[in-house]
C-alpha cells in the first residue's frame, strides 16, 4: 500500500466510524437527553464546518453567519407557526433559497472589502437582522421566541427526526468535503494565500469569494432550520453575534486547517458547555480559560495537534 492510499483508507475508516457512532446513538442512548445532545452536536458541526469553508479555507472571517443560521430557523419556525406544520419541509427549502439569495446580495456588498473590514461588515448586518427580529414582536415573537413548532407526521417522533437530520448533516458535510478538495477548493485556498496570483492565473477572486459565501451561508441556514425540530422552538439568540462567535471557537478548538477540525470542535464545545455548566456557576471563567489556553498553546486545534502527535510517533516507529 502506498502512503497515499493508506491515508485515504485511514480517513475512510474514521469517517465510517463517525457515521456508525452517530447512527447508533438512539439505540445506545439511555435517555432522550442524549439524543437531544447528539442532535445539537451534529447541527453545530454542520454550522461550524460550513463556517470554516469561509474562514479556514478561504480566509474570510465572517462574524455574521448567525444571520443565515437564524434565517433558516425563522423561515421554518414562522411558516409552521402561521401556516401549519405541513409547511415544515417546504419551510426548510424556502429558508435555504432565501439564505442563498440574501447571501448573494449581501455578498456583493460585503466582499468589496477584505480583512477586518469584512468581519465588521458581516457583524453589522448580522446585528441589524437580530435587532429587527428582536423588535418585530408581533411577527417574530421578539425575545419570547416561538415555541411548540412540531415537524409533521413521522418526523414528529424524536428518533425519526434524529435520523432525518443525521442523514442531511452527513450528506452536507460530505458535499462540503468533496468541495474542499476539488479544484474549486484549491482556488479558495489560493484566494486565502495569494489573491494576486489567483488573478494572474486568470481566475476571479471576487467571484470565488462570492460563491463560497453563498455556499457557506446556504449550509448555515440548513443547520438553523434543522435545529427548529430539535428544540421545537426558535429564539432571537440564534441571530445574536455570540452565535457567530461560537462557530469561530469551534473551528479554532478543532483546528481550522483540518476539514474535520470544526466537527471535533463542535463536539468538544457542546460537551464542555453542558458538563461545565452542570457543575459550576463559574462556567464563563472555565470556558474562557479553555479558550485562552487553546488559542495560545494549541493553535492547530485538537485535530491538528492529534495529527502532529500521530506523525511523530509514526516516524519513530517506521523510521529505522
Amino acid at each position, binding site marked *: 500500500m502506498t502512503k497515499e492510499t493508506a491515508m485515504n483508507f485511514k480517513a475512510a475508516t474514521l469517517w465510517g466510524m463517525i457515521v456508525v457512532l452517530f447512527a447508533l446513538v438512539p439505540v445506545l442512548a*439511555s*435517555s*432522550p*437527553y*442524549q439524543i*437531544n*445532545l447528539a442532535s*445539537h452536536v451534529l447541527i453545530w458541526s454542520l454550522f461550524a464546518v460550513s463556517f470554516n469553508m469561509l474562514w479556514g479555507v478561504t480566509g474570510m472571517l465572517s462574524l455574521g453567519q448567525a444571520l443565515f443560521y437564524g434565517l433558516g430557523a425563522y423561515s421554518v419556525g414562522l411558516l409552521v407557526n402561521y401556516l401549519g406544520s405541513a409547511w415544515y419541509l417546504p419551510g426548510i427549502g424556502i429558508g435555504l433559497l432565501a439564505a442563498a439569495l440574501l447571501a448573494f446580495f449581501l455578498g456583493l456588498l460585503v466582499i468589496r472589502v477584505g480583512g477586518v473590514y469584512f468581519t465588521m461588515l458581516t457583524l453589522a448586518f448580522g446585528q441589524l437582522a437580530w*435587532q429587527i427580529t*428582536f*423588535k418585530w*414582536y408581533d411577527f417574530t415573537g*421578539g*425575545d*419570547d*421566541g416561538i*415555541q*411548540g413548532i412540531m415537524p409533521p407526521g413521522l418526523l414528529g417522533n424524536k428518533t425519526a427526526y434524529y435520523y432525518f437530520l443525521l442523514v442531511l448533516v452527513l450528506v452536507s458535510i460530505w458535499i462540503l468535503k468533496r468541495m474542499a478538495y476539488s479544484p474549486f477548493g484549491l482556488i479558495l485556498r489560493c484566494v486565502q494565500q495569494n489573491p494576486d496570483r489567483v488573478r494572474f492565473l486568470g481566475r476571479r477572486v471576487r467571484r470565488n469569494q462570492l460563491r463560497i459565501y453563498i455556499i457557506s451561508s446556504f449550509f448555515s441556514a440548513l443547520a438553523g432550520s434543522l*435545529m427548529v425540530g430539535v*428544540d*421545537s*422552538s426558535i*429564539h432571537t*439568540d*440564534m441571530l445574536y453575534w455570540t452565535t457567530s462567535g461560537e462557530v469561530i471557537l469551534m473551528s479554532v478548538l478543532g483546528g481550522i486547517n483540518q476539514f474535520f477540525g470544526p466537527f471535533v470542535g463542535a463536539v468538544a464545545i457542546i460537551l*464542555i*458547555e*453542558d*458538563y*461545565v*455548566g*452542570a*457543575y459550576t*456557576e463559574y*462556567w*464563563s471563567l*472555565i470556558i474562557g*480559560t*479553555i479558550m485562552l*489556553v487553546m488559542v495560545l*498553546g*494549541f493553535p492547530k486545534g485538537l485535530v491538528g495537534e492529534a495529527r502532529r502527535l500521530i506523525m511523530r510517533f509514526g516516524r519513530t516507529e517506521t523510521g529505522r
Partner: protein
Amino acid sequence: MKKNVRVCLAIALLALMVMPMAIHAEEKVIRIGAMYPMTGRPGLYGIDSVAAAEMAMDEINGKGGVNGYKIDATFTDSKAKPAYAVRVATRYITEDKVHFLFGIVSSGVGLAVTEVSKQYKTIFIGTDHASTQLTVDKFQPYYFRVSNDTFSSMAAGALYLKELQAKKPWKTIAYIGPDYAYGHDQWNELRYNLDRFGVKHKVVGEYWPKLFEPDYNSYVTSLINDKPDILVTGFWGGDTVAFIKQAQAYGMFKKTLYFQPDAGGNYELMSAMGAELPAGLVLGARHYNNWPDTERNRNFVQSFFKRTGRYPTYAAEGAYAGVYAIAKAVEAVGNPDDTEALVKALSTLKIQLPEDPEGFTSYIDPETHQIMQMQAIGVTMPNNDFPPAKMMLGDWKVYKPEDIAPPAEYIKEKRK
C-alpha cells in the same frame, strides 16, 4: 521547554474536564432541577434565588424533611438562553429524573421551558418570570407560578392611579420601558386596567429604549418636553438605576410623578443608589424587606441576611416560596412521584408566605395556576434599617388579589 509548557497546558485542560461526578441515588429524595441566570445583568436575581431556595431547603430538611423525604436541588446557570435552558431541562427530566423543574427569571426562557414541562409531563414551578402569557395564553396544566405576574402589578398600579386622581387630579401619562415583551406587556396591561377601572387619561408619550440601554439622556429630555403628569416606567434592575440617575439630573421628578409598579420597588434599586435615590417615587415589587411588618417576613429577611451578608431582592422570596409550595404539595400527596396528584394538590394550594400580611394566606388559582397574593405599592422615603439603602418604601397602599387578578373575560379572550 516549549514542549513542556504544552504538556502542562494539556494536563490542565484534562483536569478541568474530568471533574468529579456527584450523582448519587439516595432513597427518599424530592429532586428539584432549578435553573437561574447567575452571570451578567440578571445574575443578582439568580444568586439571590439560589440562596433563598437553599435556605428553605435547609429549614425543611433540618426539621426532618417532608414525610421522610429530603429535598435536594440542583442549580444550573440558565445563561438566560432559551435553547440552553431547554437542553438543561431535558437533562434534568430524562437523566436526573427530577420531580420538579424550578426557577427561571426571564419570561422568554420560561416560555421555552414550559413547553418541555408540558411535553414530559413534569411540574414546572416558576418563581420569578412575570409574563402573564405563561398562566393565560400559554397555560399548560403542569405549570405553576408562585410570584406575581405583570398583570396583577399593573392592575394594582391602575387602582393606585385611580385613587390618586380622586385626590390630586392628573390628566396626562407617558410610558418608557424596555423594547421587548416584558416592557410592552406592562404598558398594554396597565392601559387595559386603566380603561377597565374607568380612569380617564391622555397618553402623551411612549418610548422604547433597548433592554440594557446604558444612556437615557435623549429619552429624558424628550419626556420632559411631553410634560406628563405621571411617568410610568417598565424597567428592571440596572436599567431602573441608570434611568433614575439620568432623569434626576434634569430635575424631572419635580414636575412628574415617577411610577413603576412591577419591578421598581425591588431592593436592588435602594441598595445601589443609597442616598442618591430621590424621595417621592411610587414603586411596587413582588416582595419587600419592610412590608408586611410580620414576624414571618422579618424572620425571612433576617435569616437571608445572616446567610449571605446582604438583604434579599424580590427574586429571593419567590424561590423561597417555590420550595415551600413543593414541600406542602408533597406533604399532602405523600410522595413526590405521583405527578397528577401533585398537580391537583398544587392547584388548590394555600400557603402562608413571608409576603402575606396578617390575616391573609396566599393561594393558587386553580384556573390559571397563578399564586394569588396581596399587592402593595409604596413611596420612597428615608429609612436606614436596611443598609446600604438609605431610602426605603413606605406609605403603603395595599390591594386584594381578587381585585387585581386577570378577569375571566380577559383569560377567555387570550386563550381563544
